[in-house]
């Protein structure tokens, strides 16, 4: 039985931070132990070392005169932003496919097939086709995520009450009016939700692409500093990526909440 009694807020807070605190304590303990044995240990940096690495990469220019964290974040951000254009294009595509039988017949099987192909498996082919520049990195994200988004929106559009579409047609609405005025406003918050939940995949593909060939980027840095075992930098970058993803997630949630008040959970 779930208790309906209102719990005091401090116990709630305590519970929700409990596991974080536990992990931090255990981690710090092991890091300390390792450093007692080997003061030069780089594999399990203490929190002080991580903080130092983070400030170094954020506020001090490196030996090339670059503020690393900023530079990497901008490079990765640009890649994500460009792929986002395709992701939103995918939403539109899904809506068209759901509404028009010709589009449905032409594209559905095609995207269903592509959705089943693990993008990472065709990475070597992408690099041969698109070279080692930006195109292949964006292509990896697009091929990895967009089919899922298209299929998701397609199913939403398919499930859209036909009565409303028919009603709009009888009132002589054009095709694009049906898409943009009737269907999209209703399914867009759902599409945003699925973009939000797929963001992890976007980051995953971004990092994989950057690990293979790049001159800057969050994933690039993690794989380069690995050559000298700078775990302090790696972990601080991982936390930074997690934080950014969390903020983007929260941002999309806020967008849905503000713009689509009727769409509630």
């Amino acid at each position: 039985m779930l208790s309906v009694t209102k719990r005091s807020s401090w116990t709630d807070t305590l519970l929700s931070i409990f596991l974080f605190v536990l992990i931090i304590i255990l981690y710090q303990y092991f890091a300390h132990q390792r450093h007692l044995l080997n003061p030069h240990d780089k594999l399990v940096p203490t929190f002080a070392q991580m903080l130092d690495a983070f400030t170094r990469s954020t506020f001090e220019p490196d030996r090339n005169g670059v503020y690393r964290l900023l530079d990497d974040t901008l490079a990765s951000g640009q890649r994500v932003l460009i792929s986002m254009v395709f992701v939103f294009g995918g939403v539109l595509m899904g809506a068209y496919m759901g509404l028009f039988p010709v589009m449905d017949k032409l594209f559905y099987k095609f995207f269903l097939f592509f959705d089943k192909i693990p993008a990472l498996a065709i990475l070597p082919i992408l690099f041969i086709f698109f070279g080692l520049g930006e195109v292949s990195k964006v292509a990896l994200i697009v091929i990895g995520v967009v089919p899922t988004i298209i299929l998701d929106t397609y199913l939403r559009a398919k499930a859209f009450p036909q009565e409303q579409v028919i009603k709009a047609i009888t009132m002589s609405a054009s095709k694009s009016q049906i898409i943009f005025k009737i269907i999209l406003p209703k399914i867009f918050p759902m599409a945003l939700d699925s973009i939000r939940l797929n963001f992890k995949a976007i980051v995953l593909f971004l990092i994989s692409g950057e690990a293979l060939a790049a001159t800057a980027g969050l994933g690039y840095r993690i794989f380069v500093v690995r050559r000298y075992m700078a775990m302090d930098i790696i972990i601080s970058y991982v936390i930074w990526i997690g934080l950014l993803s969390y903020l983007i997630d929260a941002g999309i949630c806020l967008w849905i909440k503000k713009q689509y008040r009727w769409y509630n959970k």
Partner: protein
Amino acid sequence: MNNFKRISQFFILLLLTGFIAACSSPSGQESNASSSTSGKSKKFKVAWSIYSGWQPWDYANQSKILEKWAKKYGIEIELIKMDYIPSVEAYVAGQVDACVMTNMEALDMPAASGVTSTALILGDYSNGNDALLTRDNLQVKDLVGKEVNLVELSVSHYILSRALEKNGLKESDVTIVNTSDSDIAPAFISNNSQKAVITWNPLIMEIKKQPDVKQVFASSSIPGEIMDLMIVKTNVLKDNPELGNALTGAWYEVMAIMKKEDKATEEALAIMAESAGCSLQEYKDQLKTTAMFYSPKSALNYTTSKAVIQSMDYVRKFCFSHGLLGENATSFDQIGIQYPNGEIQGDKNNIQLYFDSSFMEKAANAQL
């Protein structure tokens, strides 16, 4: 409410047990080090990765030569094949006791992380296995403003640095594109827009098959600077010299087979080629650019020569200027390196890398 209380109690209990478990765990990672004494004989783990100069280790394992030598000294040796960088990481993390690596990684990975290491065997040096290849007849001097594909902070990066230095250029004159070694060859071959690449064999052989590609600089221009070593944890070797004996004995037995140039040699090379994933002819070609020290005497002579000290000086300066000794390192002297004659390079209070010739000497004097 009752449930909530019970849940909270459970969590607090969990926290306490976790904490106690953490505190009572034997202080130190040494207890999970891989050398275990379970059973009668001590067991050691040795990691290796594919490279022309390291294939003999795999042959030693497959032909049971390694097992024979391990038995002779009453130990067990498990040889584990890994990718290169993960193998060095596993070594630094303490999951294996020994690992093959170049002098550069030996310095900037274990030694810089405080994992005191000993170079047990100097197997070979790269004599053309690492090279700078270009299109359009570009020379090193023509690379100004161009992109160069390579694995950043690897030996390839070192080669670039030395090539530029010898041509009066700086690293900032070119743009380095960090490229994974898994894709560097096919990507370069298929994209004519890429003009320069630095990588290692067997990829170099593959890329050179292209008609428009030329080699403009190679490790053979800086012979001896990139050495391929068998690195063992210093404390493990100190406590268990039999590990050093067994590894060295097995290595020079294989070297003798490779040098004989008879049927046994062909068979051995065929096995090495197969595990490297290339043909026998290709492997033989790779060996031409690998300066192997087939006899313990030649390895001993080179290890005790001044050339090693000079090479390490180049390498440590490169490592320091690229932040590989740790971004907080203040000098290339921060890490001490000790040579067989007792000479110490760098901080003598922080010796993290030893060049030990004693085992090769035993092999040379047939004392194994």
